[in-house]
């Protein structure tokens, strides 16, 4: 090849490469499109039948709620114009605000509301509490409906407006008629964004389009309350399971907002002048060491207490979030720090230097003789893998014989439901974490329940804890609630319902041309803009 031919060919090649790159630059325009990377794959859209956070986050755009909590965790009217409650808190009457329509053009009526609430009440803990006290849930007309209860229920507005899944989402009657244990397949809501099912590629992308007829409330948007004003015509959720790819895509401007970057890449993102990094959810998460209360040795409270004596939250938190001290704190409590009812009373067992020798003695006293402890660790989830590693080390320190079983989350999810003895397919310990938003009080907090067979995995059984939770439900004001929460915390530590492994926060990251991103337990899309 002649030198001139070579240069010509090289130039042509470079031009061709430039032409290939050009569409990418063009696609990056469009300030009316937000490209968002969620925490996980969006594999379904039913936040009533399922409690996955990612599903809840998507559903909150598509379906609206009667009430909605604000950043102070106070429920505010959303689809409702307002309510009336009787002095004895037994009769609650609500009125819908005018102009509410579904994405298919249908008017929102009380028929839709009642059907939606009935489906939700089957699945939700607070819904079940309402059902247990319910005399009637009835429509007064197309716009008004009423709960008639046989016992006072002071927390109705929180129940209807909470962000914890299952969320009381209002769907058209035909969709709400679906069995509460089956996933819906019709995604028509009345929220500020419509779900574009035709463009949905599960595992890759989910598209939401602005619902032009959405009647935005006049108040400022604040979490689930106020004006849900959408500044985008289209929100594209891009599923990027690989953190390195998501990091590169954010740096390259191919995505605008990443809900949950892993701690390892945060320093790199912070160094980038075009990227903002901040805490995503001020309510954070509580790590959990869950023991099986049905079988020895953890059916003995002394063994559970021995574990708590050795449990070093600092070890757990550093393993989970690394060296960034802003991301974690010690948590001698079962409740979310920074919330109105938070207490540390009763949490002494987690405070101070760890007492390994005492723990060993207590184990001996309880008759533990080196039986195998089956520790099920979901190694495909960074948080549970880190927690599991620390637990294996901690149990070894107090002389327990650990059988570390490395599994994937799908397997742990199925295994933990087995009540069989650990040697016959059951388990002794698994790890998870609870969103702080779910631990603000006992209502959404399934992991705190100690109702035996009906309790969450591990099946803790403590009448004392249950009685104190009952006190909270009966509490009429904040002071009474605080008192009940202190009692619950003490009883739960005394019984060791589970082992809190610490409180940790996570980051979110977004390009600097995006404004209006707020800290919340879920991504708040209303009010976010792109320049």
């Amino acid at each position, binding site marked *: 090849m002649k030198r001139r031919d070579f240069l010509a060919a090289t130039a042509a090649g470079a031009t061709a490469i430039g032409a290939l790159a050009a569409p990418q630059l063009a696609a990056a325009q469009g300030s009316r499109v937000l490209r968002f990377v969620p925490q996980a794959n969006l594999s379904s859209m039913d936040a009533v039948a399922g409690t996955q956070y990612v599903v809840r986050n998507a559903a909150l755009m598509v379906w609206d709620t009667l009430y909605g909590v604000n950043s102070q965790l106070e429920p505010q009217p959303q689809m409702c114009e307002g309510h009336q409650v009787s002095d004895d808190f037994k009769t609650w009457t609500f009125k819908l605000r005018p102009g509410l329509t579904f994405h298919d053009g249908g008017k929102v009526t009380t028929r839709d509301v009642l059907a939606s609430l009935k489906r939700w009440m089957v699945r939700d803990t607070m819904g079940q509490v309402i059902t247990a006290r319910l005399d009637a849930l009835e429509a007064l007309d197309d716009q008004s409906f009423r709960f008639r209860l046989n016992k006072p229920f002071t927390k109705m507005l929180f129940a209807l407006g909470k962000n914890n*899944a299952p969320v009381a989402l209002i769907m058209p009657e035909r969709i709400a008629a679906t069995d509460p244990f089956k996933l819906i397949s019709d995604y028509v809501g009345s929220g500020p964004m419509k779900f574009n099912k035709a463009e949905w590629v599960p595992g*890759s*992308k989910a598209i939401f389009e602005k619902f032009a007829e959405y009647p935005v409330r006049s108040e400022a948007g604040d979490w689930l309350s106020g004006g849900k004003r959408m500044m985008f015509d289209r929100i594209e959720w891009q599923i990027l399971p690989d953190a390195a790819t998501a990091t*590169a895509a954010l740096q390259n401007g191919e995505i605008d907002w990443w809900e949950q970057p892993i701690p390892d890449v945060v320093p790199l993102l912070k160094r980038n002048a075009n990227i903002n990094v901040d805490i995503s959810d001020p309510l954070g998460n509580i790590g959990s060491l869950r023991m099986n209360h049905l079988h020895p040795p953890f059916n003995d409270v002394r063994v559970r207490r021995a574990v708590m004596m050795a449990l070093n939250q600092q070890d757990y938190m550093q393993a989970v979030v690394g060296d960034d001290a802003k991301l974690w704190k010690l948590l001698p409590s079962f409740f979310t720090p920074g919330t109105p009812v938070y207490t540390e009373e009763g949490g002494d067992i987690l405070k101070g230097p760890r007492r390994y020798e005492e723990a060993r003695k207590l184990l001996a006293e309880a008759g533990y003789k080196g039986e195998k402890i089956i520790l099920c660790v979901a190694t495909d989830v960074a948080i549970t893998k880190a927690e599991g590693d620390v637990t294996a080390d901690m149990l070894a320190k107090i002389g327990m014989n650990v059988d570390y079983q490395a599994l*994937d989350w799908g397997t742990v999810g199925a295994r933990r439901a087995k009540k069989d003895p650990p040697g016959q397919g059951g388990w002794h310990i698994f790890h998870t974490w609870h969103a702080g938003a779910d631990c603000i009080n006992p209502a959404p907090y399934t992991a705190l329940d100690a109702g035996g067979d009906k309790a969450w995995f591990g099946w803790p059984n403590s009448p004392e804890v249950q009685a104190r939770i009952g006190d909270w439900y009966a509490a009429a004001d904040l002071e009474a609630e605080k008192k009940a929460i202190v009692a619950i915390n003490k009883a739960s530590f005394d019984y060791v319902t589970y082992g809190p492994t610490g409180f940790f926060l996570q980051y979110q990251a977004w390009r600097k041309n995006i404004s209006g991103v707020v800290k919340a337990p879920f991504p708040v899309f209303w009010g976010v803009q792109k320049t």
Partner: protein
Amino acid sequence: MLTYAAKRVAATIPVMAIVAFLVFSLLYIAPGDPAAIIAGDQATPADVDRIRESLGLDRPFVVRFAEWVWRVLNGDLGQSIFTNLSVTHMIGQRIQPTVSLMVLTLILTICVAVPMGVAAAAKQGTWIDRLVMMVSVSGFSVPVFVVGYLMAYVFALQLDLFPVQGYTPIANGIGPWLSNLVLPVVTLSAAFVALIARVTRATMLEVLSQDYVRTARAKGVSQRPVLFVHALKNAAVPVITVIGLGVASLIGGAVVTESVFAIPGVGRLIVDAILRRDYPVIQGCVLMFSFLYVLVNLGVDLLYTVFDPRIRY
């Protein structure tokens, strides 16, 4: 040959039946529970049980298998447990990116690896041979995801020539389509080029030592026709065999490449389905890949007759 092809196509039926039974059985005994995943972490055990019941996952193996086989025989691969979308629709959404990735990888591999192997054999023992071998060893040794990250870092982040991730359908234009595929294809080709180049070199060395090649050279035939007309055609059969076998490893590599470059292909679909225990999707994808693999092998067998007239079916 037509009879042979028809027989081979017919033989795929028992193969597919065995694959179907094995896949269904393995998934049945494998740990994991889609109901628990649908229910989410906060759900109670009773909720998980009810969801499992509503999905029909509590029914006996035989009933579920018979139902699934009946549906498949009627051309229905079922519905995803999670999305309620039909498996056929989900595979249809994903097939173009995967086929694009695999076809372009095959083309690039053959265009690069065969000349490399021929050159290495023709210049055995020289720096060209050593260079080809070095490239081959590197291609084999470096994992696909490392190559992928390096490519993305250099050509997307540093030079800003290509996007880091994603896929643009071919209907949106050849340019955008290729733009998204350049890095994944080069990444996926790396190991495959190494394999084919080595096999081509070894086979060519054997062929070049044959009497008829010596005769051709003695008759004054120049180097290029000797290599590409006389030798390469006879060396093609083992190379085609390896290319055919390599399609299977290409499918495995595509899973990783699709994850690294966030390409919405069938590879990622099957990985996601396995992680969620979305049984109908796993079964549908495995059946499809098995069928594809059987077809590729049939194609390879038929190609033998093109390159070696002595082979008759």
